[in-house]
């Protein structure tokens, strides 16, 4: 077993355990913290796959956003900051079953992709992956259209949020 495999196994177990705890822990805020642990584990996986950019963006976007989530949790739980309620309903097995079905579907889908199970190819030393990603995002024969469409969607969401926020004042 190589070092990468050991790291992968440890991180995988950590991600699974913390993901399970997100849905089972009684305290909402602990759920948010376990979510941080799970997402951080995913960032570690990206880093071991030499996807530096994705790993760092994962931390910036998700862990940075968890702080906001935290505040929302505190606001939504109102008076009881240390709220201890049951996190599961009596029909918890239906979403669990659905989750397992989706997992099975995803596994089948991923297995059908050619090249699954290959070992990681070491990137050539001089390759600047961030530069390659950046030029792919803005080059017309690569992803410029999806990139611009996503940007316009985000802009529309921003404008919509500003409009909704100022509705009361009129």
């Amino acid at each position, binding site marked *: 077993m190589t070092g990468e495999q050991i790291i992968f196994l440890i991180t995988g177990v950590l991600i699974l355990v913390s993901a399970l705890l997100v849905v089972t822990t009684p305290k909402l805020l602990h759920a948010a913290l376990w979510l941080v642990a799970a997402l951080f584990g995913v960032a570690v996986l990206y880093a071991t796959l030499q996807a*530096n950019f994705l790993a760092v963006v994962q931390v910036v976007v998700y862990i940075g956003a968890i702080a906001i989530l*935290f505040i929302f949790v505190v606001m939504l739980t109102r008076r009881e900051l240390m709220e201890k309620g049951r996190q599961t309903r009596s029909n918890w097995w239906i979403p669990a079953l659905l989750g397992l079905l989706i997992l099975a579907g995803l596994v089948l889908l991923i297995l059908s992709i050619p090249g699954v199970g290959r070992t990681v190819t070491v990137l050539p030393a001089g390759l600047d992956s961030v530069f390659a990603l950046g030029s792919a995002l803005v080059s017309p024969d690569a992803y410029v259209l999806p990139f611009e469409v996503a940007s316009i969607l985000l802009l529309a969401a921003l404008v919509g949020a500003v409009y909704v926020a100022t509705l009361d004042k009129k």
Partner: protein
Amino acid sequence: MTFWNNPINLIANWLNGLLTGWHLPGTLATILIFVIGITVLIVFAMVLDIGLVWVERKVVARFQDRLGPNRIGPFGLIQPVADIIKMVIKEDITPAGADRIVYNIAPVLAATSVIVLWAILPLASTIYGVDLNVGLLYIVAAGAMGTLAIIMAGWSSNNKYALLGAFRMVANMISYEIPMVIILLVPTILASTMSVRGITEAQSGMWFAILSPLACLIFLISAIAELGRAPFDLSEAESEIVAGFHIEYTGMKFGWFYAGELLHAFTFGGFMAILFFGGYGGFFGLEKLATFTWLNIPFVQALVFIAKAMLGYWVIMWIKYSVPRIRIDHMLAFNWKFLVPLSLVVLINTAILNKVLSGMPDWGYVTGMFGSNIVIGFVTIEILRAYGRKKRKAETKPAPQAQTQEQTV
């Protein structure tokens, strides 16, 4: 001579030879060397931190017309050691109702979020932890971890003031992250790389502070906000919310927050030096001359870097002890209505001019960049002046609502 040119590599190779000589497998030897390297770097940062306590106390004393610590050791140099002993032997209290695990993790995470920044800090051309090609984003990611640590501390203390302080801090850090991210793109465009070391190397001819002084200023402001230092220290405003998120922490747990804050300030001073003042190099081509080749020795470079970082740290302290705390609505308005638009203008200006002026000779490029920044700064000040005049006129007019109220009463 190789020791003077590439000391870290030489030591690593020597250690590798020593460890494999003891019949350790090659990978284990590499891992051990990395662990030793990381430990040495962290120890260096923390020892520097002890020095920073003394510097901070001496400088604040001078700003407040006092002498500062001067009893223990020469110039009070042993004062930080006394501080540390005091902190370590203090009673360690966990408040009733606190979330014990989260409460204890938070100070560690706060200090970690600063120490991880040292991984990408290039002390000299051959002395650095790692040369990430996403270095600048890494700074932002470490900041996100710091935000998380603070809100964990604020919530788990089970104290209203602590929670309020943490909320303020999060509002502060998340808003000022935006101008910081935008302005970090300016050095990225100028150096056409996000690697911190690449940005330093790109400034061997001209500092980015001269190419884009406005970007330098905006980075300084958002860095101070990210640090949560005065005038952005609403999260620990003594007169309103006692001490914010570290209200319940005692002893060394408080010490971690304190040490983390000082080291954070110094580290951002270092990033100011790296991003805008040429880091360990940047002598305007002087180091290429035969008589000045000693400037390229890594130890000299490290000294130059630390001196520049100290200067940045001093500027941050200077602002901290001269400017009063600003109100939270002013803070948010200043960010969203002033800093974000200004940084967007600076970024667009840099991106366009960098392309337009790329064919020009060096002096034309530098003059164009510097001149455009001066024009933007002048226009900004004029807009602010007009806005301020309008506000003052509106205030001097008698308020019409007050009169109608009097009549109805």
